[in-house]
């Protein structure tokens, strides 16, 4: 069983950080995994994406071209990648920023106003984490416990005060 995840958005939205949390979830659950950021010209143009593979087998190509799960945090990313999602796949969208209308019927699309939720709950920049909460609720790819452990691992000790906020963001996403 392999889950190929693609996270895409603007630089500064926490695309790579969200990917890192998913990668650490895999590490916590003793899975095989890879995390690959875009670092090419597209990143220098302000957009950013990140491939995460979580698997029971050693990961082959770490570059996700046909994701099982897509997280789209801006319109260009949604438009560019929604067509690449595998049939039966799932898409999570920050619906505050993205119009996620799409004529595909073989995938599930969840629009969550995650930017708005983050602002309303004084979780500035927490839209990415809210989306992760929604993902674990809808896909069951990881447990809440695993994700909390991963967050504790990813947030650097100098910013430990932010762990509680991240936990709050996850729960907001799960309940959205």
């Amino acid at each position, binding site marked *: 069983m392999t889950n190929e995840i693609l996270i895409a958005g603007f630089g500064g939205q926490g695309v790579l950080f969200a990917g890192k949390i998913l990668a650490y979830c895999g590490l916590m659950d003793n899975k095989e995994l890879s995390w690959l950021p875009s*670092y090419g010209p597209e990143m220098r143009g302000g957009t950013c994406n990140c491939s995460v593979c979580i698997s029971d087998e050693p*990961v082959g*190509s770490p*570059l996700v071209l046909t994701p099982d799960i897509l997280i789209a945090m801006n319109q260009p990313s949604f438009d560019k990648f929604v067509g690449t999602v595998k049939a039966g796949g799932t898409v999570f969208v920050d619906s505050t920023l993205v119009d996620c209308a799409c004529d595909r019927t073989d995938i599930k699309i969840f629009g969550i106003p995650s930017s708005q939720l983050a602002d309303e709950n004084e979780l500035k920049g927490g839209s990415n984490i809210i989306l992760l909460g929604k993902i674990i609720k809808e896909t069951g790819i990881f447990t809440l416990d695993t994700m909390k452990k991963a967050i504790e691992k990813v947030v650097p000790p100098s910013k430990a005060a932010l762990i509680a906020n991240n936990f709050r963001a996850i729960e907001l996403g799960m309940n959205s």
Partner: protein
Amino acid sequence: MERNLMKGNEALAEAAIRAGCKCFFGYPITPQTELAAYMAKRMNKAGGVFLQAESEIAAVNMVLGAASTGVRAMTSSSSPGISLKSEGISYLAGSDVPAVIINVERGGPGLGGIQPSQQDYWQATKGLGHGDFHLIVYAPASVQEMVDMVVTAFNKADEYRVPAMILADGLLGQMMEPVAFPEISAEQPDKSSWAANGHKNSREHHIVNSLYIDPKTLEDKIIERYERYAKIKENEADAELYLTDDADIVVCAFGATSRVVKSAINDARAMGIKVGMCRPKTVWPFPEKQIREACANASKVLCVEMSMGQMIDDVKLALNCEKPVEFFGRTGGVIPTPAEVLDKIKSMGGNK
């Protein structure tokens, strides 16, 4: 062993420190910069020296100086930077000074691009600088292998008194994977018979040099070095064989490309196509024996690279051109997809 998540570039740096590397000289270039950044953060605390040189050329010559005194020293760069270092690497080889050089390849030629490539295969294995010489060249395919191969590279460089290279690429350098660090013996080989270090006039001077004006002396030096190369060829060539026992088509690929190929092979096997892979883990010495064994029962061979086709020459030589060797590659920073490789495998037929 505890598993950590690390970028390939960071894992290369940490492995070098644990292998007893005391001096790192670097100059930033995408996509290897995290390596130098990690060294800047860690090396001083680990009791070593990190120095950002004014250029790649300066950095490699600092490695020549430091390694001449017998300490373990390393430099790293990406393709255009390695070209700049080539003069110093030739001097390292000509002075019989062991050191480790890391190339996290990007697209070329010239300034090229910043995306992953394997276009420096010829440079690494055939002609990294002027003169008759070789480096031992390791080609990792995972972050864990980057760690293991850095440790091996330092050990083998010391054992044979030759420079060694890790030939990686931007994909491996940038990706994170779980990695565990093996226990590494703190003991290092005795270099007191040749190292040019302080001795308070207690012995004759040691001279580390690559200049031999008398042709016969120089020829003897080179012939002695080639005797060491012969031992390296005999003992150090290494490859991974994947599903080759019953394979009708054998794919040869190294580094990041081998991961793409593995995905394609798994898909092809699911369709009943008998295909396997031979993955060189050292590209110099080239694992000729392993390739011949892997291809013994195959009717066709395919070489897949992130270049216009460079390793394919060595594959053909290893097989004495006795089997047809086809090629598939993407270049300039484009990463081949498993689907493209699968299409190529399908187009070659292959007995089910």
